[in-house]
């Protein structure tokens, strides 16, 4: 990607393993990704692809034990997150980078008021405010996410799921972070509430100019709000580019499989074409391409050789050995 743009989050060669009872679970295996200022990046992939681990690593929050960051470099606004003291890390978390978690039901502390939980973040990062001012700011945040400010003194169990997620978003945005990581922010919500919450998140993001990574497996959400897309499989990025690149000029067989798994409203008699098989056990990854066993284009080379990342345009990257043959095309791109 072009260098003149400001990079707010840069992850380079990240390797994260979980070591459980002698097994090594290779969750993230050499992941490189950059987020430009003001852009929204969709990180797509199925369960277990390493999306959440990557997000947690960005805040240096990978639970240790059992998680170990083996290798890599993560910079947020030029600050090296992996080589910081605990104190410095606390100043970065919530201020430079904030995270929205998947399940709002369990993400809020049940015995503290929501106002307190929002204000806590403000008090840590803006110590010049006294506790009353911080609390007032917290109530402003509540209003911003569409909750009446007098509900600040209420507890999480008095809110519905969608409302709780709004509170979680208010906590994350309380100090106007440079980078926001949203880990499947709507997965646990009803469809109608999903749209509301996404819409609100999108508005706030545009209002504050927050650079965002949205982790999801819903391609609809990606098409809706992302500028860039990175597709993740077995701990690696296998295709990355602008929304247009990935959606309209799909290159990787796995990405093609993701699109084929979506129902087509125009052809309602068409059968769904799910990707056969399961993602390989991250404790026991194959030597070659991790997708080879499920890939209809796979050759013997795929099973022995780790695919290289190749740039096929200024913004579009794909990691697939099949493109060693200059004439190779996936089915999706053969169609007019």
């Amino acid at each position, binding site marked *: 990607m072009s260098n003149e743009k400001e990079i707010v989050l840069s992850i380079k060669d990240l390797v994260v393993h979980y070591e459980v009872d002698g097994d090594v679970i290779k969750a993230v295996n050499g992941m490189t990704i950059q987020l430009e200022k003001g852009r929204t990046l969709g990180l797509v992939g199925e369960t277990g692809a390493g999306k959440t681990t990557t997000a947690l690593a960005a*805040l240096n929050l990978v639970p240790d034990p059992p998680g170990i960051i083996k290798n890599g470099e993560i910079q947020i606004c030029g600050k090296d997150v992996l080589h910081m003291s605990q104190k410095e890390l606390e100043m*970065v*978390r919530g201020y430079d980078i*904030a995270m929205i*978690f998947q399940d709002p039901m*369990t993400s809020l502390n049940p015995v503290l008021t929501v106002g307190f939980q929002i204000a*806590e973040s403000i008090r840590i990062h803006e110590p010049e405010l006294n506790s009353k001012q911080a609390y007032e700011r917290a109530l402003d945040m509540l209003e911003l996410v569409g909750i009446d400010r007098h509900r600040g003194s209420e507890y999480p169990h*008095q809110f519905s799921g969608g409302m709780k997620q709004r509170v979680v978003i208010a906590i*994350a945005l309380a100090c106007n972070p440079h980078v926001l990581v949203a880990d499947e922010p709507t997965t646990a919500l009803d469809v109608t509430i999903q749209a509301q919450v996404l819409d609100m998140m999108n508005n706030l993001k545009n209002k504050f100019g927050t650079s965002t990574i949205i982790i999801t497996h819903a391609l609809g959400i990606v098409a809706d709000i992302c500028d860039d897309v990175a597709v993740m499989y077995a701990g690696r990025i296998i295709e990355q580019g602008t929304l247009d690149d990935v959606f309209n000029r799909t290159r990787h067989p796995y990405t093609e499989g993701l699109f084929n798994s979506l129902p087509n409203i125009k052809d309602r008699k068409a059968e769904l074409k799910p990707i056969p098989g399961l993602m390989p056990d991250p404790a026991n990854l194959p030597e070659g391409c991790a997708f080879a066993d499920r890939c209809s284009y796979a050759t013997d080379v795929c099973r022995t050789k780790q695919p290289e990342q190749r740039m096929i345009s200024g913004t579009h990257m794909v990691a697939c050995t099949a493109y060693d043959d200059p004439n190779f095309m996936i089915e999706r791109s053969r169609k007019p």
Partner: protein
Amino acid sequence: MLQYIWKRLLLLIPVVLGVSLFIFLAVNAASGDYVDSLNTDDMTKEEIIAIRAHYGLDKPLLVRYGHYMLDLLHGNLGKSYSTGLPVFEMFMSKIGNTLYLTIGASLVCWILAIPLGIFAAQHQGTIFDNAASVLGVLGLSIPNFWLGLVLIIVFAQYLRILPSGGAETAASVILPAITLGTGQMAVLMRTTRSTMVDCLSQDYLRTARAKGVAEKRVINLHALRNALIPIINITLTQFAASLAGAALTETVFSWPGVGKMIIDGINQRDTPVVCGSLILKCIIISLTMLLIDLLFVAVDPRVRTSFVTVKGGKKENV
């Protein structure tokens, strides 16, 4: 809320009735009566019969229970056979000592068990955790009276730094408090550990860390506030239980408390003392349980809202 407290207090009446019946029957089921426990060698048969008649011991069990309950309804717990003093007065003169010992024991227990439990939870699966578990099991399995005797031998007999019994000096409470506290410590430590382990894996701690909250505050505020609910439950239940059950420790250290008074009462078949003390203890325990429930309301907002919904000042009971 007030209505709830009243309801709970009214419930005390059937509890006291049930407990008194049970205790009265249990004491009478034991062989012999007060007169048998006296030295009757130089008494004539007539004198013995007269004593029995004086205390009403010659009447059938049901009649005696009836008399006892009638007195109880008037708030009269009767007089001790052996001392002739009103049981209520005797109890009140001893309960202070028992309370003193129980508070001492609870302090020993809390100061050791809660930090140990938190520490073990934080270092789950490590050698510290195992060491704390061993300590806990040890504390649980050592019989009170044995530990009491060992402490007396070491500190009173060999080192001669602490008194072996009685309640004459302020230092007298140390050994019985350690003895009583050790047994409770194990249970409280295990509870603290397991609830903290549970709380430490909760998602909301991750949310707190992601906000930039310092690790110390994550543990001491975010996790502990949640773990407090079961911890308070155990501590106060134990407090109530040791108010009631310090008898062994009190006996070993000749601590002039209620426990010792009851044991002496049982040995002398002094029915009014045993019954009266146990009924009073029963009331104290019930009140402590009520206090626990009220504390829950203070600590756990989820319980609080089930009593009162603040919106528009409307109150509703669920």
